[in-house]
Structure formats: C-alpha cells, structure tokens
C-alpha cells in the first residue's frame, strides 16, 4: 500500500498487514505479554510526559519495545517491563551519548528506518530518563514486600497503579453490597 509523505512530497510504501502479523507473532512468543508491555510503557510515557521529550512516541516507541523485548514462554508482564527498561539503558545509553540514533527496520518494508525522524537530542533525553526508571523498575520487581513493591510501581506508573489491599487483593473492601430487595427490571415511564 502506498501512502503520501507530506514532508518529502513522495509516496512511500507501507505494509500494515505484515506489521500486524509481526505484532501478533511477537505477542504469541512472549506469553501474550508484549501488547500489555507496550500499553504499560505508553502509559508510563504519558504519566511522566513533562519530563520526556515529545518524541519518541506512538509506533516508533512500540517498535523499540518490540525490538528490545526478549521472547520467553513463561515471561510475565512485570518481568518484561523491567527487561525492556534495562535493555534500553544497556544497549542505547552509549549510542545516545554519542549523538547517534539506532537504525530499526520496519517489519513491513525493510528499507524504512522507523526512527528516521527521531532527533539525536530527543533520543538522548529519552534514554537518560529511561535509565533512571530502569533501576526503579528493577527495585520494584525484586521487592518481596507487597506494600513496598506496590509503592515503587506507583512511582513508575502513577497513582492509578493499584496498591495491594490488607487482604491481599487489589480492590477496596466492601465493593460488593448485598441488595436489600430483589432486582426489578427497569420499566418504562411511558404509556400508550
């Protein structure tokens, strides 16, 4: 499929179906955690958006996560997040310090570099922030105390991250209230 590139005023080749099938395949190979991890990392980016440069985001970010995430049949989402953060730091911190941006080939169209438009400055800023959070994520993952772990994860993903309750669950007590009368199906207030 051909799409116009308005900046270069050229038509570019795309292959969305191959991208989709690559993503599905990746998800299968990672114990169905890949999509969760991408969502989590996109959420994290939004939570701390003011600290981060505007780019990378969207598909380039997703592509980087896919590139970094190691396949594993018993992978968990938390494990994957920690691994992605750490790989990001280990693989690309030095690259970024050298004012370079890695070249990642599009899954659909091999000659496309997904990060072609990402500037070295943005990339450097991004990797620096990732590096800080890589250590935090490792700490949260390794913690064996549920309350402590939850507090650390909240530092990464924000206050919406559910904390473990006293009874070990993640939902407030008293969420279910026994009804006092039997349910009545809603009736209309209209007549004819």
């Amino acid at each position, binding site marked *: 499929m051909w799409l116009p590139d308005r900046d270069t005023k050229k038509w570019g080749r795309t292959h969305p179906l191959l991208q989709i099938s690559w993503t599905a395949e990746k998800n299968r190979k990672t114990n169905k955690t890949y999509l969760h991890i991408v969502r989590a990392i996109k959420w994290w980016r939004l939570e701390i958006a003011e600290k981060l440069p505007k780019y990378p985001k969207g598909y380039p970010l997703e592509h980087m996560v896919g590139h970094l995430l190691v396949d594993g049949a018993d992978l968990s989402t938390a494990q994957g997040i920690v691994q992605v953060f750490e790989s990001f730091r280990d693989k690309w911190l030095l690259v970024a310090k050298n004012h370079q941006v890695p070249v990642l080939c599009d899954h659909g169209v091999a000659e496309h570099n997904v990060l072609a438009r990402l500037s070295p400055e943005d990339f450097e800023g991004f990797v620096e922030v990732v590096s800080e959070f890589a250590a935090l994520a490792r700490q949260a993952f390794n913690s064996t105390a549920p309350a402590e772990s939850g507090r650390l994860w909240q530092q990464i993903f924000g206050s919406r991250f559910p904390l473990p309750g006293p009874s070990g669950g993640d939902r407030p007590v008293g969420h279910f209230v026994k009804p006092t009368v039997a349910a009545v199906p*809603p009736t*209309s*207030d*209209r*007549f*004819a």
Partner: protein
Amino acid sequence: MLHPVTSLLRTGVGPVTALEGWKEWRRGFFSLPLVARVTSSPGQSFPAESGWHFIVSSGSYPADIFILPDRVAGPGLTFPHQAAVYHRDGKEPWLNGEPCLTNPTAVFGDRYGSFPEPITLADRLIWKVERFSRWCELAAAGRLHSPGDYFELPPLGGHADPIIIGFHETEGDLVRWTQGSARAGVVRLVSVSSSSKAFAAQSWRTTEDVLLHAPEWGALIKNQSTGEIPAIWFLLKDIPIIGAWQLPRTYRELSERLAAEAINLADTLAVLGRSMRKRNISRPAVIMFGFPVPRFFGDAPSRIHWLAISDVRLTRKDSIRDGFRPTEANRQRFDRELARSGKALSWATCENWAPDQIRTRLRSAPVSQTKMLLIGAGALGSQVAETLMRTGVRDIDVRDRDELAAGNLCRHALDLTMIGVNKAAALAAQLNRLQPDGRARGYDRAFPIIGPDGPETADDYDVILDCTGENKLLRSLLMIPWKSEKLFISLSVNWGAQGLMFWSSRGASFPAVNATERLEALAKKFRPEGLDERIEGIGCWHPVFPADAADIRIWAGMGARYVLDQIGGGPEGCGIYFFNDDRTIGLEHG
C-alpha cells in the same frame, strides 16, 4: 304583512306580477298566484308566460315562504338552480320544484343581488320575489349556468327514499372510459351500510361478465361479497337530460333520451329480464348511466359521473297476467312494455367516493400515499390510527398481540362488539369501515418476529409508528436491518396522560439508545406527583396506568397531527406536549 309585497306585485317586480289577491287555505297558510312574463332567448325552453304560486306558511318560525310552479301553467321542466319539478300528492294547484333562491353565496354568488335575507316577513317576501324575478330572467336567457360556475347535477326528485350508490372515478379513469370500446355491461354492487340502501360499485364488467375495471377500493368494499342486485351500466356521450335541466321522469322519457344515444331500452330490459329469470333473481334491478362531466361549466370533461335508476321491476318467472300465456316470450313483451310506459323512474343518489372527492371537507389535501406500520393498538394507537385513516392515510398495517378487554373500552377507539378480539385485527376492521379506500390490515403478532434468518424486515413501509410506550420495542427497531430510509415516529403519554411524548427521525437505522434515554428523561421530569397506580379491578391486581379518555383523545389528536406534519416533511425532533395548570398546552424539546 302581506300588503307591501302585494302592492308591489300589482305594478310588477321585474317580469313578475300578481293580479289576484291572497287566498287563505287554512289558518296561517296563504297563497298568491304569480305570473312571470319574459322574453325567451332563441332555443330556450323557458315559457314566455308561466304561472307560479307565492306561498306563506306561518306554522313555524320564521314563516316558510315558497314560490312553486303552477301545475298547469308552470314551465313543466326543471331548470338549473331549481328543485326537481314533480307532482306531489294533494289537491293544491302547484307542483314541487322551488327555484333555489335562499342562499346568496353558496350557489349564486351575487347573481341575484348580494343582500342577505332580511328578518321581517314583509321584507323577506319582497326580497324573495325580487330574486325570483331575476331567476326567471336568467332562465329565459339560458344563463343560469355560466361558464366558470361549478358543475352541478340535475336534481333527482320524485323518490322518497332513494338508494345511495358510491362509485370511484378519478380524473385518470376518464381516458379508460372514453377510449375503451365497451359502452355497456354489468356492474357489481355491494352493500356497505347497515341501512341496506347504500351500495358501492365494486367492479365494472362487460356484458359477458369479463372484468373491465376494478377501482382501488379499500378492503371493506373490495372483499365484500356481491349481493344479488342485478345491475347494468351504459356509457353515454352526454348528461341524460331531456330539456332545460330535467332528467327523464318516466320510462318513456328515458327510452326517448337513450334512443338519441342509439340505446334501445326496451330490448335492454327484455334481455336483462330474461337473464334474471334464468338465474332466478327476482330483486328489482339497477341501471347506471355514466357520462363525462367537467369541473366547471364550459370546461373540458374531467371525469365520468354516474346516475342510476333503481327499483326497475322486471317480470318475474311466476308472474301471471290475465289474457297472456305464461311464456318467456310474453314475459319479454311485458318488460319491453315497461320501457314505453309512463311509470315514474326512481333515480338513485349517486356519489363519487374517489379519494379526492370523498374527503373534500378536509382543510388540507389528502397526504401522498404512505404505507404505515403501526405497532401497538392501545388507547393512543387506536385513536391516532382512526384520525390518520380519516385523513387519507389508507395503508396501515397494525401489529398487536393483545385482546380487547372490557376495561379498555373507557379509553379505546374500539367498542363492545370487539371484546375478546385481537386488538390489531379489530382495529384494522374498524379502520376499513371509516373510509371507502381504507386498506388497513391487522396482525396478531409481535414486532419484530425473529425467525431463523434473524429479525423480519419491514421494508414495505415508509413510516414506522410506535404506539407501544415500551422501550424494548424501540430497542428492537435497532436490530432490524432496514434497507431503505424510513420515517420513525414514536408517540406515548406520560403517567396520568398529562403529556404526549414524541420522537421522530428519518434514516435507515433507528437510534434506539438516544431515543429511549431522551424520552424516559422527559417522562420522569413530567411525571405528576401523588398519582397512584390503578388496579384492573376486584379479582385482578394487575396494575394499569391512570389516564382519562378526554386526555387520551387530546393527545391522540396532537399525535395524529404530529404524524401528518412529519409525513409532510416536518423537522425531526424529540419532546413533550404537556398541560399547563390552566390546561393550555406547553411544549418542551428534550
């Protein structure tokens, strides 16, 4: 009282004079012989001198005043704007057939002067005789009908209790008749009224009983089985008058008039009589005469009108006449004799019941032909449908699973005779009785029926009208894969029927969630306080909602008006009409 007009008439009011004095027949009943002397235009049959009677009967208030033709010296024929001239029983020297002078605007415009009828008797007599003198002058000049006047049929006269025959002729049908080759045939008359004197011409057939034309009647007339009324028709070139504005009065006059159209009435009666005797039919026959009529005098004909003579008594198989052998040849001879006899004709009242003629009383022209699906034949639905049918929305399919209960009667359009009948079927039957072109159908079925292939499609309809008051119906409309754009209308009343909620939208799908939420919000907002549920009655605690018949009638009227406006292209909307405290009606959009 009588003197002012008498002295005026001595010298003459126009061509009218009175040379004698008033005669008192009995207390309060007077008559005065009048003479009208006019100069007739060439070719006009109004006599140069004619005798009339000025009659005053003070037995009622205001006193009745008539001007009637003299039995001997009167004109003898009926003229335009005159009641049929015929001899009534009695010894009086006058005939029936008063010139129509009373209403200045309805018939004449200001042809006789535009002054309305005065109040005192003396003034009324002068007013009447002045108008009569003008009528005589116009009759003599042949100008009672002027080009541009509404076409008017000759008065029938004579028969005390004529039968009524409805026919269905549109302007489009004129060509069928004038260009077709058939000039005579049989017509199937079906009874439509419990008076058993009103009939409709169901279908027109050739002499060999081959169908020529079945008009677009409604279900009642279309499906009515043919009674045993022997009826034949002739198509004439012109209105069958014998002079002036006079229909034939006797079989002899009719024979002579028909001879001018190359129709032999004697032979016709003989053939008709023979065929009836063969089929053992002994009821009096009907003969219909069709002729092209214009809308206005002087215009080209616009449609066929029919007149009919009824009570044509032909010789029965078992009739015996002294001196004649009871043979078929003799019976035909008797039927032929009827055509030459002076026996009076019984003209039937014939009316055009075509859609554009039967609903002329309506303010707005009949709506374009819309097929409507009405879901819910309850108090509101039944009365909305009734009004729509009377207005000319003639294709209505009704769906309801309920049976009519006695408790429904206090608010429903249906009646006692329908208790225990499915509401949809009963309502459809009722609707078809309302107009001769009513084509309602009722189904004892829920809507929509979900079959193995999914919900039924209802793509025959242009308008989907919901009168169930139920949200589940609105939601089900969403499930149906409509193939074309529909007009969706939902009408319901609130608790206590203090308001009418309406919804309308056009499209190939129904926005059920939007509609139910907005309508329910209105219903809750306008729910009156402190009005308890009613129960069906002792022995049944089924709750029923309280509402008065008067309120339901009002909202049904508003609802029908809303539907008509929507069919006419009104804007889509959602809202409620509600009663203010002083019973004026407010409107809130929701």
